[in-house]
C-alpha cells in the first residue's frame, strides 16, 4: 500500500471513504456475530435459552459438550466423519491424478471423448442423482442378500467414501488437468531420455510438481466431504454409522421437542470447529487456490 501510485487517481472523498468502511464493517459484523453467538450459546444453561439471546452465559457449562459427545454420540459420529473424509480424499487423489495426467497430456483415439464426458460431469450435481445411486445399492444388496446372506453396499463407510470420491472426479480432473496442460513437454522428454518409463516419469517427475494443486484439491474436498449430509443421510441408515452433520441434524430435530439447546449448540461447535481451525491455518492457500478453480458444485 504505497502512497506513490495514488497520485494520478482521483481519490474518493473522505465521506465516501467512511461510508465504505461502515458498509464493510456492518457486513463483517453480520458474519462474525452469529458465529460468535453460537460459541457463546454452547456454554449456556438450558434455562437461559428462554430469555433474551444477548445475555452472557451464567458460568461456563462445558457439560453441554460432554453431553453432546457422549449421550448424543457426537464422539462416534466424529470418528465416522474422520474415516469417511480421509478415505474419500485418499481415493480421490489416487484415482484422479493419473487420469488427469493422461487426459491432459496424451493424445489417443478416445481422448477427446473422455475429456468432453468428464467436462459434462461438471454439470451433474450429486444431489440430482442421489436417489438412483441409493436404489442401485439397494439392488446390489438384495442380490448379495440372496446369494451370500448379507448386504455390503449400504451402511458402509468405505462405499460412502467411494461415492464422494467418484462424484468429485469431474471437478478434480478439471482442476488438475488444467495444471498439467500448462507444463512444458520438456519434462517428459528429459525423463524419457534418461530412460525412465511412463509410470516412473509420471510419479517421480510430474506429480511432485503438482503439489500446490494437490493441496488445493485436498482443502476443497476436505470441506465438501466433511460438510456433506444428503448422501451420507441416504446411504447410511444405521444410527451408529452417522456422520457428524447428520448427527447435528438429529440434534436439531430433537431440540424442537426435548428442549436441549445447550447440547445442540455444543454439537454445532463440534461440527464447525475443525473447518474453522483448518481455515485459520490455510486461509491464504484456500482463497488463492480458488482462482484456479473459479467454480464449484
Amino acid at each position, binding site marked *: *500500500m504505497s502512497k506513490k501510485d495514488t497520485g494520478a*487517481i482521483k481519490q474518493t472523498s473522505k465521506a465516501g471513504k467512511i461510508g*465504505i*468502511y461502515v458498509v*464493510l464493517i456492518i*457486513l*463483517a459484523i*453480520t*458474519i*462474525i456475530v*452469529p*458465529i460468535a453467538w*453460537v460459541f457463546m450459546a454452547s456454554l449456556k444453561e438450558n434455562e437461559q435459552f428462554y430469555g*433474551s*439471546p*444477548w445475555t452472557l452465559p451464567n458460568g461456563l457449562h462445558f457439560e453441554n459438550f460432554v453431553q453432546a459427545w457422549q449421550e448424543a454420540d457426537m464422539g462416534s459420529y466424529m470418528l465416522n466423519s474422520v474415516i469417511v473424509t480421509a478415505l474419500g480424499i485418499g481415493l480421490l487423489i489416487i*484415482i484422479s491424478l*493419473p*487420469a488427469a495426467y*493422461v*487426459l491432459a497430456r*496424451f493424445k489417443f483415439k478416445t481422448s477427446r471423448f473422455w475429456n468432453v464426458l*468428464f467436462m459434462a*460431469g461438471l*454439470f451433474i*450435481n450429486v*444431489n*440430482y*442423482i442421489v*436417489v*438412483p*445411486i441409493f*436404489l*442401485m445399492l439397494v439392488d446390489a444388496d438384495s442380490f448379495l442378500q440372496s446369494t451370500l446372506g448379507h448386504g455390503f453396499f449400504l451402511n458402509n463407510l468405505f462405499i460412502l467414501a467411494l461415492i464422494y470420491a*467418484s*462424484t468429485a*472426479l469431474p471437478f478434480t*480432473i478439471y482442476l488438475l488437468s488444467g495444471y498439467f496442460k500448462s507444463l512444458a513437454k520438456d519434462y517428459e522428454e528429459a525423463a524419457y531420455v534418461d530412460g525412465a518409463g*511412463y509410470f516412473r516419469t*509420471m510419479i517421480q517427475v510430474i506429480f511432485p510438481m503438482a503439489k500446490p494443486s494437490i493441496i488445493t484439491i485436498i482443502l476443497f474436498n476436505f470441506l465438501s466431504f466433511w460438510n456433506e*449430509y*444428503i448422501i451420507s443421510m*441416504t446411504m447410511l441408515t444405521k444410527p451408529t454409522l452417522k456422520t457428524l*452433520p447428520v448427527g*447435528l*441434524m438429529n440434534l*436439531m430435530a430433537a431440540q424442537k421437542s426435548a428442549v436441549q439447546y445447550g447440547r445442540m*449448540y455444543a454439537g454445532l461447535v463440534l461440527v*464447525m470447529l475443525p*473447518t*474453522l481451525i483448518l*481455515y485459520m491455518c490455510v*486461509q491464504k492457500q484456500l*482463497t*488463492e487456490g*480458488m482462482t484456479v478453480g*473459479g*467454480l*464449484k*458444485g
Partner: protein
Amino acid sequence: MQRTKGRGRFIVTCLAPAVILFLIFMIYPTIDVFRMSMYKWGGYTADKTFVGLQNFQTLFKSDKFYNSFQNTVLLIVLVTIVTFSLALIFAAILTREKIKGQNFFRIIFYIPNILSVVVISAIFSAIYRPEVGLLNSFLNLFRGEEIQWLGSSKVVMYSLVIAMIWQAIGYYMVMYMASMANVSESIYESASLEGAGKIKQFFSLTLPLVWTNIRTTLTFFIISTINMSFLFVKAMTQGNPNGSSHVFLSYMYLEAYTNSSYGYGMAIGSVVFIFSFALAGIINAVTKREEIEF
C-alpha cells in the same frame, strides 16, 4: 518408436479406475433418472410397471410441483442478483480503494463458505426464532410485533434467500477480487485522467474486463443454487410451513423417499435436469459478449 508398446497399457491403467467409477456413480444414475421416470414403482419391491409419460402428466397437474417450481425460480433470481451485484461491488471496492485491513475483511467474508449448510441452517434457525431469536430481539428495539421468519408461508422464502446470500457472497467476492487484481493499474490511471469517475470506471472498465469470469461463474452459480436451495430447505425448513417452502429437489426427495414413489420422483428429477441445462444454455447465450482485452 519403441515407446508405443507400453503407451496403450499405461493410458488404460491410469484412466480405467476413474472412468469406471465415473460411469457407475455418475453417468449410469443420470441415465437412470430419465429411464425410471417412465415407470410406476412403489419402492423396495420389484414390481415396476412401464407407464410411459403418465408420471409427467400427473406432475404437470400438481399444484405442489408448481409451487416448488415457483420457489426455485424465486430463489435463483433473487439470490443470484443480490449475490452477484454485492460480490462484484465489494470486490471492486476492496481491490480499487486503499482500504486498511483489506486482508481482514477478505478472511472474514470467506468464512460462511467453509461451514456446512447444516451449521448455517442451525445458526439461522437461532437467528429466526420468533420469541427469543437474534433478529426479532434486535428488531424489537424499533417495532413491537414479531415476525414469523420461518413460520409464515409468506416470509419463509425470503428468510431462505437471506441465508443463501449470506453463505455465497464471500466466496464470489474473493474470487472476483482475484480476477480484478489482474487488471493493470495503468488502465485505471488513464481512465481517470480522461475524467471517468469511480462508478463509470466500474461499469466500463472493471465489469467488461472480468466478464469472462462472471459468465462462467454465473452459469455454475445458477446450477448450484438449484442444489443449494435443496440443502437449505432440507436442513432449515423441511418444506414447512405446510409444504410451502419446497424447492425442486426437496420435493423430489420427498416424493421418492417419504412417499416411496420413485418413478414419480424421478420424473421431477428429469424436469430438474432439463430445466437446469436449458437455463445454463440460455444464460450462456444471453451473456455472450466480445472478449475485451487491453
